[in-house]
């Protein structure tokens, strides 16, 4: 039996350039601003929300605060008694929250779900933050006592590409420069006023230091405070919602397909497992294939754009061939030919991605879905891909461990 479609009514993203610790804010304020913003943006009444899901990676570490679902109830008196929960899968936490909410709608439990992704990361210095992020790997084996473990792990992803197919750092630098350039068109991007150029991204030195292996600062996503909320609806609610806004339900975007796979948590185990596969991260590839199948998409060119998980340039490099823009190992061709740029055949990360827009870990999956929503509704402003009707997201937790994919469209 085909489950009923899940509609996206819209949402709200906080300005990712903000430093909420400097503002003296508790994580409750991040959640509140996103929820209030989403209610206002969609015109949904608080009393209409039936369930709340929060995606968050590590508030217990960064903000000494757990039990984040409960903070939704605090936002509005109409939320009294609202069933809520919090979901965690490292950097894919936001997508897991979306999957849980959409599954409940598909199951017919609820008609309207509020999903919030949130992370407050600037509470600690970069080194300690890097250590906290290490808990997204097998901490004891891969991160304990290692300075900035994740850049090193994703550096090794690049090394694995290099070993199998060859990899030039210039292609990674180009990916970085494209993301920063796109971020300049995104009014909510963390780096929108920062300086970046391909020449700088290629340079190694005082202002672009090596963080781990082949990974330089310009290859990295950002440490970001941010919160994003979206509202997901059943066909029943979407019908009423569309009617009261003078629209048809067909004009509302929905989740056309999803994929969700988990690989072994240790990076070495992933690589060992994928030796026989043309794909370096076959479970990520499978999540994409699953989502395409559910969305009825035969090939990647049926998409008009992708918001992918560029926690490092190597992860975007991986996404290019895993999505099927090129044959495995040939991502560099799409980079060289300008395919992934705004104006290219299939733009990747018009928002600037995690490198340009920022990466509040638990919020990223929700941010990607909201940006995909903006694209397919023609409301993405300067970062709009003209005529976009179908967009995909790829959100990854750990070193390619948990992969979540959504295809969004009308």
């Amino acid at each position, binding site marked *: 039996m085909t489950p009923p479609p899940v509609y996206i009514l819209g949402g709200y993203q906080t300005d990712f350039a903000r430093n909420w610790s400097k*503002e*003296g804010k508790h994580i409750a304020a991040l959640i*509140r*601003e996103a929820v209030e913003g989403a209610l206002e943006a969609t015109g949904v009444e608080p009393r209409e929300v039936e369930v709340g899901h929060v995606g968050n990676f590590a508030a217990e570490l960064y903000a000494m605060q757990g039990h984040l679902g409960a903070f939704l109830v605090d936002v509005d008196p109409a939320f009294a008694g609202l069933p809520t929960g919090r979901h965690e899968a490292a950097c894919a936490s936001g997508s897991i929250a979306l999957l849980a909410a959409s599954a409940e709608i598909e199951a017919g439990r609820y008609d309207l779900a509020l999903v919030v992704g949130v992370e407050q990361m600037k509470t600690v210095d970069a080194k300690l933050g890097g250590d906290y992020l290490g808990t997204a790997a097998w901490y004891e084996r891969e991160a304990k006592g290692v300075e900035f473990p994740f850049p090193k792990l994703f550096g090794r992803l690049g090394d694995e590409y290099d070993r199998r197919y060859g990899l030039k750092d210039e292609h990674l630098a180009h990916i970085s420069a494209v993301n920063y350039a796109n971020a300049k068109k995104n009014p909510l991007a963390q780096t929108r006023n920062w300086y*970046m150029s391909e020449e700088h991204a290629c340079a190694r030195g005082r202002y672009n230091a090596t963080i781990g292996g082949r990974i330089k600062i310009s290859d990295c996503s950002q440490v970001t405070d941010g919160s994003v909320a979206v509202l997901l609806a059943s066909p029943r609610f979407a019908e009423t919602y569309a009617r009261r806004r003078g629209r048809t339900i067909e004009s509302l975007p929905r989740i056309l397909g999803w994929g969700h796979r988990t690989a072994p948590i240790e990076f070495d185990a992933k690589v060992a497992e994928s030796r026989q596969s043309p794909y370096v991260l076959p479970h990520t590839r499978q999540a994409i294939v699953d989502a395409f199948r559910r969305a009825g998409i035969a090939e990647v060119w049926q998409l008009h754009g992708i918001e992918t998980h560029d926690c490092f340039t190597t992860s975007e490099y991986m996404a290019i061939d895993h999505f099927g823009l090129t044959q495995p190992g040939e991502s560099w061709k799409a980079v060289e030919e300008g395919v992934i740029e705004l104006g290219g055949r299939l733009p990747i990360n018009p928002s600037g991605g995690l490198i340009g827009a920022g990466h509040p870990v638990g919020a990223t999956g929700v941010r990607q879905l909201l940006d995909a929503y903006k694209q397919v509704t023609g409301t993405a402003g300067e970062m709009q891909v003209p005529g976009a009707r179908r967009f995909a997201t790829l959100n990854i937790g750990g070193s390619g461990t948990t992969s979540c994919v959504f295809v969004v469209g009308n």
Partner: protein
Amino acid sequence: MKRIERVVILGANGAMGAGSGETFAAAGITTTFLARDRDKAERGRARAVSMAKSEAISRYIRTGGYEELPAAVAEADLVLEAVGEELPLKRQFFDLVERHRREDSIVATVSSGLSMAAMAAGRSESFRRHFLGIHLFNPPNVIVGTEVVPQKDTDPALTAFVIEFLERRLGRKVIETSDTPAFAGNRIGFKVLNEVAQLAAEHGVLYLDTLLGPHTGRAMAPLATIDFVGWDIHRAIVDNLHAHTNDEAHAAFALPGYMARLAEAGHLGNKTPERGGFFRQVPAAKGAAQEGGGQGLWVLDPARGEYRPAAELATEPPEIVRRMKALHRVGRYREALGLLLTTEGHDAELMRRVVLGYVSYGLGRVGEVVRAVRDVDRIMGFGFNWAPPGLLVDLCGARPVIEALERLRLPVPRCLVDHAERGQRLFTEPFVDAGRFFHG
């Protein structure tokens, strides 16, 4: 079609010159940094590289002494003057620029408040048609709020072109202001800052910065801001405003006597760390030797012109401050501002007088200095990092603000009355989180 591909910065060694130059070079525009000699210009380049955190912008920067001005200006599309804030000095440079510029090149000044008309007086028609102010705020690579100030002879099409260029190419948030003293941002902002400095004589420095701190919608408390800006700059701005404006804030622009005396004695704020300003950081050893003990933060007693350790003066913050901060901390901004309007007592009354005085004076400049509320909001939000007046009205409600202004006998701006009648939102700038202005 006009283009800006080559820019010359005069006075490129200073903070504003190097910072302005960085914003052009970072956009990939060939920028010539000129200063008294090449070494000084090179120091400007180093500052720009450090601001961009990239050696890569160096390729867009050329440097030279003023002997290279004729050749550089001759091929420039835009000459931006950032020399000292003195009219005779600026006019000397404009003499040179006029002699060597192309007929179609744009000439601009980063002046934060001098009269554009006075700078343009006596110049050729071509110069006057192409001359305007581009007031960037310090540091220009961080603060994107920008004022564009045409004078009466500036070609309106050129003004429109410059605004478009600054917004599209350099990512600035631009407003156009009239050629009135200190333009919009500094006139509105320094009215508040100087008013607080005046009040400090009676109420004390620490109390006022606590009462009117970041919970009232600003990144930095007012007196700490004056220390950050520098007392000399503060004095130049408010003296100019006191001499050349005559509105309801005239008295608020009078520099307090204690500030005049201390500034004469070399107390200029953070730039004179030994003497300090409203605050002084006393290092451990010196504190013990010179002041009879107590390193750390010392606070000015305006009446005596002496400093005392903050630790001795610190008391519990007023109840309203504590409650507003607690609400901001969890994102309940509307409720916090509701307290500002409704709480009784001396602390709240003083806070209301200053914060609503800012709303009144800011919105009151619509029609005189700027065209629309959006302009005031934009420059206070993106230039000062203060909660824009229109946003404060939206969060408090227009009617309650009008009633409070009437109770305080402060002018009720026409645009506020019109707005209250229409019942629309006053703050219209997109993609701005209201919460970013209010600190917990």
